[in-house]
């Protein structure tokens, strides 16, 4: 609609986000060489989560949207984490 504003993200921010993603990707590869035991998956998920947040916030403009949108996206992640939790609740007590 014509009254809507679009936010222009400067190139410098885009490049900074790209660099951060590359660094985190490098870290994702690097930690495969380390042994965290049962926490291997957790470490990989944390890094993947950080990358997802960068993509959502800057590339998908969530940072510049009304508060409703980040809240709804966060709700989706909460549901996803709860589903994971309930699933592994079974495995933890077998």
């Amino acid at each position, binding site marked *: 609609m014509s009254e809507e504003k679009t936010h222009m993200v400067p190139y410098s921010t885009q490049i900074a986000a790209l660099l951060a993603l590359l660094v985190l990707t490098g870290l994702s590869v690097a930690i495969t060489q380390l042994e965290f035991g049962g926490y291997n998956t957790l470490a990989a998920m944390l890094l993947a989560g950080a990358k997802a947040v960068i993509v959502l916030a800057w590339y998908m403009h969530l940072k510049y949207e009304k508060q409703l949108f980040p809240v709804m996206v966060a709700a*989706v992640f909460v549901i996803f984490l709860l*589903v994971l939790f309930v699933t592994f609740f*079974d495995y933890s007590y077998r």
Partner: protein
Amino acid sequence: MSDNTNHKEVSYLEYQGKYRGILGWILSTDHKRIGLLYLYTMLLFFSIAAILGLLMKTQLIAPGETIMGPQTYNSFFTLHGIIMIFIIVVPGLPAVFGNFFLPIMIGAKDVAFPRINLLSWWLYIIGILIVLTSQFTGGGPPDTGWTFYAPYSFQTPTNVLPAVFGAFVMGFSSILTGINFVVTIHRMRAPGMKWLRMPLFPWTLYGTAWIQILATPVIGITLMLIIAERMLGIGFFDPALGGDPILYQHLFWIYSHPAVYIMILPAMGVISEIIPVFSRKSIFGYRAIVLSTMAIAFVGYFVWGHHMFTSGMSGRALFTFSFLTFLVAIPSAIKVFNWVATMHKGSLHLHTPFFWALSFLFVFMIGGLTGLVLGALATNVHLHDTHFVVAHFHFIVFGGTGFAFMGAVHYWFPKMFGRMYDANWANLGWGIFFIGFLSLYLPMFFLGMSGMPRRYYDYLPEFHGMNILSSMGAWVMISGILIIFANLIRSARSGPKTTEKNPWGGKTLEWQVDTPPTLENFDEIPAVDKTPYDYRDYAENTNS
């Protein structure tokens, strides 16, 4: 331009756009035409799946092999399940009546993304075609059941891959419809239509759409894992390779239980539309129904484990899933209470849609309460994988979604087609269908409690009596369906024409637009200044 002249006056059925004839339908981005495309597709496949069901019940009319052997029986219940679940009831009400009426009920000219809407239908058709190829190619029709349980689904020589891939493609259709509805409801409500002035059918579509968006990708990934397992032997689910078959069940039901709410929530929305209209009374507890809708959508994510009580989960998981299952019954019961309370002291108008709504309440209560029997850990051990389960989910899925679907067709038929059906034939069809439905499925509860397993083409002699009753019920029910379909098809083609905007005395926006609606639904987008079921004027006129 010649292709959009008169679009404000001509009905969507007569409007001639860029394409004519069949192309004017299968390439149309009009939400109403897309809704009807889904309806016609579902009618065709429902007929096929119903015939499969009828043949299965005929096989079970006596012990031993009567009209088919075990392998044919296995492939019949697999195809029956795949069609009924993935092609009929999951897209069901949202795809047909959601597409047709959501924009009109919230005061919009179309959905937010009309082209994506058409793409959804095409993906749905492509998915169906892929599933159908599984019947005629490779190692024969799949025999896994619609759940594709591992490890059998990657060991059977039958043609599982196309069936799984077809369901995967149809999942995309479901996701796109969900995204379309969420955006439409957020962005395109008429001026003044605040969230709590939105009718209840759109509310249930909203809850459903979120489930479609969030849960469907899980089944997509799971089905891909089955394909990878069959083709590459990776070992996700194969114990011989270190995999875990119970992981498959977790992943499958993480989607497929919320999918039950994809089926039933819009059905509850339809019933919430019909009951106040035919009771001439504002709906009792509008906010409670809205909250219970969203509560069902949310809690419904976390009850999937009740399908796996005998699979070998940990004791604490069993307890947790049983508790959550009992929890999700509460908002469902709130809705039933509100519907009954709406009818209380209402001015009941006994027309066909209302009969469907009343019978929905009856069968939904039986389905819901038997669900609690299955949700309790101890009784589940006895009843798991028996006919009791089959009866329970047919009461919920067919009795719930199916009855609401029939109610919706009879409720919105004059608006959709600009013609009226024969009420006497419609009522007769309903009556025969209802008697047949109960005769078909009630005996299954007793059979299940007596220990007759599901998915067996044969049974012990002591189950014969109940099976005869059940099989006869199937024939009665199909007779009812034939009467209903014949009446509706004949009426859509040559029934008495009507242009009456509001034949039932409804209050929501679809009853204020032309019959049948014009291409863009509204000449001017209406301003909404009150709640959707305001029958105070009716009460005042009746009292005065």
